[in-house]
């Protein structure tokens, strides 16, 4: 990434409107710091996923702009921009006709790495996500469990060592135990790798556990950005609603 500023991603007055006129996101101003894990929290339709997709140009802002590494995404070569941004989503989207190895190796191959370096890197990232290459490299996605697939998806996102990771409810479709495991592993991984992560979730517990900061979105507008402790201690009624639901859940758990 060019520039040595502390800001990895910046939304500047960013808005997104569908061609039919519905506004999904309006006037978002938000800076994501290098190496932090910023959680985007909000209800369905609050603009979390839209914000995420504006970063890697899956969507194009209809007003304002998004800057990555100080440069507006529109000025980047889109392919080059995307290759430097890992992307992990709830449905994973592994290629069903590729083995685990080939899924993970795809971007390094497209970037024309040497075969030996690709092999070593695939082994490394699979080990990082707890999938020994010897056991899994030759398998096809349909031979894996949901949790294993999500691990491979994460390994694929990390393969070319992108400085930025975008994650859209990556653990949302997993059973609670697998989800808890993966959260812990992701947290350790993030401490090791220090990527800039933008992570979408509607799970307040997940946001508090993984985030260095939490951005709350409501109906396409940013309510505020909080550190986890601030988020829990807030007196703001709309934030409190999320905290209360979270606390109620914990209470039930304890009883």
């Amino acid at each position: 990434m060019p520039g040595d500023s502390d800001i990895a991603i910046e939304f500047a007055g960013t808005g997104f409107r569908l061609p039919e006129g519905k506004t999904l996101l309006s006037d978002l101003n938000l800076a994501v710091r290098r190496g932090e894990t910023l959680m985007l929290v909000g209800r369905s339709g609050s603009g979390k996923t839209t914000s995420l997709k504006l970063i890697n140009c899956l969507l194009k802002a209809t007003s304002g702009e998004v800057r990555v590494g100080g440069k507006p995404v529109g000025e980047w070569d889109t392919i080059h921009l995307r290759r430097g941004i890992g992307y992990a989503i709830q449905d994973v989207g592994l290629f069903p006709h590729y083995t685990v190895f080939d899924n993970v190796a795809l971007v390094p191959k497209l970037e024309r790495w040497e075969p030996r370096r690709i092999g070593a890197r695939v082994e490394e990232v699979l080990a990082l996500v707890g999938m020994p290459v010897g056991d899994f490299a030759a398998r096809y996605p349909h031979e894996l469990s949901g949790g294993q697939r999500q691990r491979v998806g994460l390994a694929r996102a990390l393969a070319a060592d992108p400085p930025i990771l975008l994650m859209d409810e990556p653990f949302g479709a997993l059973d609670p135990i697998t989800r808890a495991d993966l959260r812990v592993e992701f947290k350790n991984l993030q401490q090791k790798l220090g990527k800039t992560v933008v992570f979408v979730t509607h799970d307040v517990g997940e946001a508090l556990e993984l985030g260095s900061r939490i951005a709350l979105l409501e109906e396409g507008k940013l309510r505020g950005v909080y550190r986890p402790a601030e988020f829990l201690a807030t007196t703001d009624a709309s934030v409190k609603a999320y905290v209360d639901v979270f606390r109620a859940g914990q209470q039930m758990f304890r009883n």
Partner: protein
Amino acid sequence: MNFLFTHPREVATLTAEHLWLVGVSMLLAIAIGVPLGILLTRRPRWKTVVLGSTNVVQTIPSLALFGLLLPLPWLGARADRLAIAALALYALLPIVRNTYVGIAGISPPVREAAIAMGLTSEQLLWKVELPLALPVLLAGIRVAAVITIGVATIAAAIGAGGLGEFIFRGIAMVDNGVILAGAIPAALMALAADLLLSGVEKLLVRHRS
């Protein structure tokens, strides 16, 4: 049945003619149909028009289609040329439709992940869309091949040759043996094409759930 065995040379010649008509028209239909199907996935608005018109072609009786193309300047000049054009038009619908359906049916997260990983649109097509659409695409080619082998027997009516020669001759002579000398090889050819293409399909898509 005797005729089939007493005239092996003639049977072989007409079978070869038939194969040639079918082969060339299939190649033509694939060369036009697959890119056209891919184009529809990029320009969905054209879908109704293109699939609609290939559908209309399918509803025209084959004999009528041969007749309709006859007055055309370059095409009408030679019977085999005309037959190949008409057969290719018939084969087009299943190929275009299945190419389109095969690609459009790829699960959205797979496509989204591929785009987000920075695949160019050519890489998306060759590495993801075509391989995943292949089983459906091949099924379309199979259907097209079987249809074309059958319809090609009618091409004899305009003098384009092929196994239809025996069928029309046999009808004129009221001789079932001669009819069968055309019908049996044509039926065997259709079966063989079906088996061959399903073999290719199995070979290419071994690994999927």
